[in-house]
């Protein structure tokens, strides 16, 4: 059941390739930028590796992997990595997400 990672899909059956193009949303571009910056490609300090990005994506439950979009998987994985490395804590993240949500709701008031 777990010998083959869900991501390790070479050779499996699948439907037709839909030649879909994707207009990236700004938040997705920012996630991509976070990865470029945190992996130190541009010369800054290396805060994480692409290998950790991949590992944390591969650890997603199969149905989550399928349902999540590409950058939803990326932002989840980057965030997990930051928690694993101790650059942020779960508590900090939870409080910040609450704060951002409240800010959004206040903005709508």
């Amino acid at each position, binding site marked *: 059941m777990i010998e083959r990672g869900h991501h390790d899909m070479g050779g499996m059956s699948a439907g037709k390739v839909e030649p879909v193009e994707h207009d990236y949303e700004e938040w997705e571009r920012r996630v991509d930028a976070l990865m470029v910056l945190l992996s130190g490609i541009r010369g800054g300090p290396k805060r994480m590796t692409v290998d950790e990005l991949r*590992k944390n994506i591969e650890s997603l439950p199969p149905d989550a992997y399928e349902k999540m979009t590409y950058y939803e998987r990326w932002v989840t994985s980057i965030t997990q990595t930051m928690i694993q490395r101790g650059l942020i804590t779960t508590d900090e993240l939870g409080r910040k997400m609450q704060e951002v949500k409240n800010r959004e709701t206040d903005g709508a008031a």
Partner: protein
Amino acid sequence: MKQTAQPSFRPGDRVAVRKAWPLGHIRTPHYIRGQVGSIERVCGSFPVPEELAQQRNGLPAQPLYRVRFLQRDVWPDYQGGANDALEVEIFQHWLDPA
């Protein structure tokens, strides 16, 4: 301490991909394990992704090869040219002489 393993294989050598299914982050695809091919080129030596994924430095760097396989060897039901090929980057520690 030596930080790089020496290449064991050269272009043209026949190699077999190890049949192992350990846990962790692995860049040797499931479909190629146990297959036999030949070294197409030595790509250089790189830190091991399995270790980098675990926040370790992946040293000593391992030689990375491009290995060429015949599609008809890899897939029993392959529909295509008899000489169609599949080339995969595989780290030395996943290869045995064939």
